[in-house]
Each structure stands twice: as structure tokens, then as C-alpha cells.
């Protein structure tokens, strides 16, 4: 579904990605794990078109999308839930969700999707008239996920959904991710919380300072002694 080939991205003179190649198969949850500064967010931001690639290609369903504008990429069906949630604090919960459906024109479809999100997160329905900035961290993460579900997306890019959340909320968010996946969306998950990520993923790539150093079935990766020592605290 998504193929990244020899992708290189730099910030000025600093190379953040030094030519990475990976693939996300349709229907799977693929995770990209690695420490801070490994290039995980850079990868997602480049797929979404927020950053420009210096070299390499990105293909989505066979079409090259390298360096297209973010709005075109969303319209093709790739949506990102960015790091730090990035909900619009001065907009209401409902307005945030409506903006998530920007690429959809039909009012009926938008309303149906809105109901779907409210069903998944009843808390958001309760707070629909409230400003997003007044929500708790967990609620904001729900809003960020709900907002992404408003788009007509087949591939969901998730950047550190567990960041800054209490353990019980982390469990909840990961359950939601699995549920979204079972409903038919493919997921590319970036996480520092490798343990959680490997539990739900089918396939995993390990990123270290701009290079993919290891890859394999998530279960295999979780058993690897080096990965255990470096990322799983064992």
C-alpha cells in the first residue's frame, strides 16, 4: 500500500533520514520504533508532504506521491495524527472534527462520520461544544484520533499517540488503534513506547539516527536480544 524507497530528508546541512526503505502492506499495523531523534517523525512528516524529500520516492497504491502538497496527499487517503495531538485549542470539539472532514463535500457523509466518532468516543459527544483547549490530555488524544477518522482515509499515520498519557489511557488508545485497524484501515505507527507498539503491530522497523537498522515480524523483533536490551528495557 505504501512503499518508501531510499528516502533522504535533511534540515539544512543535517541529514535526518539517510536513505530509508520500507513498506506498509494493506490491512496491517506497521510500527517504526526508535529513540528520540532517530527520524521517526521526519518520516511521517515527509510522507504527509510537510517536509520535502531530498532523494528517494514514496509510492501510495502504486502512485508516486513524493513531494506532493499535503492537501493532495490527504485527498488521496493518507491522514496523519501528529505528535503532540495538535488539536485546534480555540475551536470547539465539533469544529475540530468537522475540519477533519475537510476533503469530504457531502453534508450527509460528514454527519454519518460525526456520529461514528461520537459512538467510538462518547466523551467527545458530551464535550462537543467545548473548546478543545479545555480538554484533558487523554481527551485531546481522542479528539486527534476522532478528527483523523473524519477523513476518508485508508492509511493512518500515527505519531507517538502514547506520549504524555497515563498508562491506563495508553491502553485505551492502543485498543482504539487496533479497532480502527480491524475496521479496515492500514496503520503506520511511530512510537517510543516500543513494548506497546510491538504488541499490536504485524511488522516492525527499527530506526537509528536516520537509518533502518533492523526489521521483521513484530513478534520476532520483540524477541531479539539486542532490541530487548536497547528498546524494551529488558
Amino acid at each position, binding site marked *: 500500500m505504501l512503499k518508501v524507497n531510499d528516502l533522504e530528508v535533511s534540515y539544512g546541512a543535517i541529514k535526518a533520514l539517510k536513505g530509508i526503505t520500507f513498506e506498509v502492506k494493506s490491512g496491517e499495523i506497521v510500527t517504526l520504533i526508535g529513540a528520540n531523534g532517530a527520524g521517526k517523525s521526519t518520516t511521517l512528516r515527509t510522507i*504527509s508532504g510537510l517536509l520535502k524529500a531530498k532523494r528517494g520516492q514514496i509510492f501510495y497504491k502504486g502512485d508516486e506521491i513524493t513531494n506532493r502538497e499535503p492537501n493532495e496527499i490527504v*485527498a488521496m487517503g493518507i491522514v496523519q495524527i501528529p505528535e503532540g495531538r495538535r488539536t485546534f*485549542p480555540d*475551536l470547539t470539539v465539533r469544529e475540530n472534527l468537522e*475540519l477533519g472532514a475537510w476533503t469530504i463535500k457531502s453534508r450527509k457523509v460528514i454527519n454519518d462520520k460525526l456520529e461514528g466518532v461520537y459512538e467510538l468516543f462518547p466523551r467527545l459527544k458530551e464535550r462537543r461544544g467545548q473548546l478543545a483547549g479545555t480538554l484533558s490530555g487523554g481527551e485531546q488524544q481522542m479528539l486527534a484520533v476522532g478528527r483523523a477518522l473524519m477523513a476518508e482515509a485508508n492509511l493512518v499515520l500515527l505519531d507517538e499517540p502514547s506520549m504524555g498519557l497515563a498508562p491506563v489511557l495508553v491502553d485505551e488508545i492502543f485498543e482504539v488503534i487496533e479497532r480502527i485497524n480491524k475496521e479496515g484501515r492500514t496503520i503506520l505507527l511511530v512510537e517510543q513506547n516500543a513494548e506497546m507498539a510491538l504488541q499490536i503491530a504485524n511488522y516492525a522497523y527499527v530506526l537509528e539516527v536516520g537509518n533502518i537498522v533492523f526489521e521483521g515480524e513484530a513478534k520476532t523483533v520483540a524477541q531479539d536480544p539486542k532490541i530487548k536490551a536497547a528498546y524494551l528495557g529488558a
Partner: protein
Amino acid sequence: MSGIFNFQQVINSIQLGSIYALIAIGYTLVYGIVKLVNFAHGDFYMLGAYVAYFTAMFEISRKDQPNVIIILLISMSTGALVAFLSNRIAYRPLRYKPRLSALITAIGVSLFLEYTSSAMPFIGPSFRPFPDVIQTKQFHIGGAVLTNYQIINVAIAVTLMVVLTYIIKYTRVGMAMRASSQDKDALKLMGVNLEKIIDFTFIIGGSLAGAAGLLAGITYPRINPYMGIIPGLKAFIAAVLGGIGNVTGAMLGAFIIGFAETFGYAINSVIGEGIAYAILIIVLIFLPQGLLGKKTGEKV
């Protein structure tokens, strides 16, 4: 009522404030989204006044009764077009460059519009009297005189402000405008083409400035190519006073400046002009973010 603080001054203040408000909205909208102080904004207003002037003269020359609504629409379209073009030609290429470059460019666009207009033989540098587009009527309320021009002025300004508020609050594009002043990257991730939202913002701001040009033409009937400088500055002050980026704040600030200036003149015609600026300085000392501005600093 008599003396300085009378009903007449209130009428005059509201009328002046409504013109400032239409200009100030454009400043605040553009600043809210692209963080640019568009100093050429006062010149969109000037061009609106000139187009209104030519349209009215044309209608009069054909012995038609000038139609204020048609003139208004033409003025607004002109303001919108010039604002759109300024953005596309001058500001957009500098979008992700140092902010000072864009600011200097805005001053350049402003001077360009003023001097080019004044060099055009059909505009010229000198004052022109704005024609009477309708028969003046006066209404006496107490000791005050209200003209039908003032009524038209305030009615048009208020209608436009209501429409604008509706667009910003209740339409999808309005939602995107508000969101874009909060988090541009997140908005792009929603599939919004940010540049289109910026175009739309310039078009809205420019059309309101164009409308203000017509209103100024009919109520202060002398126009010249430099007429936009001072009202533009005062509208900018109004926008900062109200809290730049905040539309309600811009309207509030504009009426405060309108009242301050009118009453300032009534008290003393020499220092009157200074009062608006003194208010700005005092308010900003105590409320650096403006009356309705957000207290939090800009997010990085």
C-alpha cells in the same frame, strides 16, 4: 443636550468608527493568519474610493440615478482584486522568508499603489470632490442632525460586519481561517490548502476595505491618492488596541478610536488627533496583548 458631549458627536463617532472597523478587520484577519502587517491595506481603501468615484461619475454622466449597491459591489470587488493580487505577487513568494522582508514589501506595495495612482492622468495627485450619489436628506433628532448618508454608511458597515462574523463563525472556510491562525501544519494535515485560505482572507479583507472607501467617499467627500495613509494607520492602531488577530477586538478598537477622535476634536481641535494615539499607548502599557487579545505568547 448641548455642550461637547452631545448626541451629534455620538452619531459622528459611530459613523467614523464603522469606517475604521471595516479597514481594521482586514488588518487583523491577515495578521492573524500570516503574521503580516499589511501596510498597503489603507491603499485598498483608497482604490475602493476611487472606483466608487468613477462609477458614480459614469452613472451621473449617463443621467442615471447612481445606485449605491452597485457602486458598493464594484468597490468591494476592486478592493478584493487588489488585495488578492498583492498577496499573490508580492507577499506569497516571501511567505517563509524573514518576516521583516514581508513587512518592508508591504510598505513598498503601499507606496507603489499611492504613487502609481497619483501618476495616472485620470487620478492625479490632487483632491477630487466626491459626487452626490443621492439627494442629501437631513433628520433632526433632538439637537442633532443625522443625514441619510450617515444612515447608509452605518447600515452598510453593520451589515458587512454581521456577514463577516457569520462567515468566520459558521462556515467551513471561516473555521479553517480560525484554525490556520492556531496551527498551520495541523490544518494542512486536514487536507486544507493553506494558500487558498490565505487568498480568501486577503479577498475578504480587501473587499471590506473597498467598501470602506465608498463609505468614506460619500461621507467625507474629498478623495486623493494618499487618503488611505492616516485611516489605514488608525485602523491598524484599532486592530492592535482590540488585540490583533481578534475580529471582535478590531471592531471594538475601531469604535473606541472613532469616539476618541471625534470627542477629542470637539474638546480641542489641535490635540484631538493625538488622543487616539495616547489611548493606544496607555492601553498597551497595561494590556500589551490588546483589549481582547490572548494573554499567552505565540506558540512556537
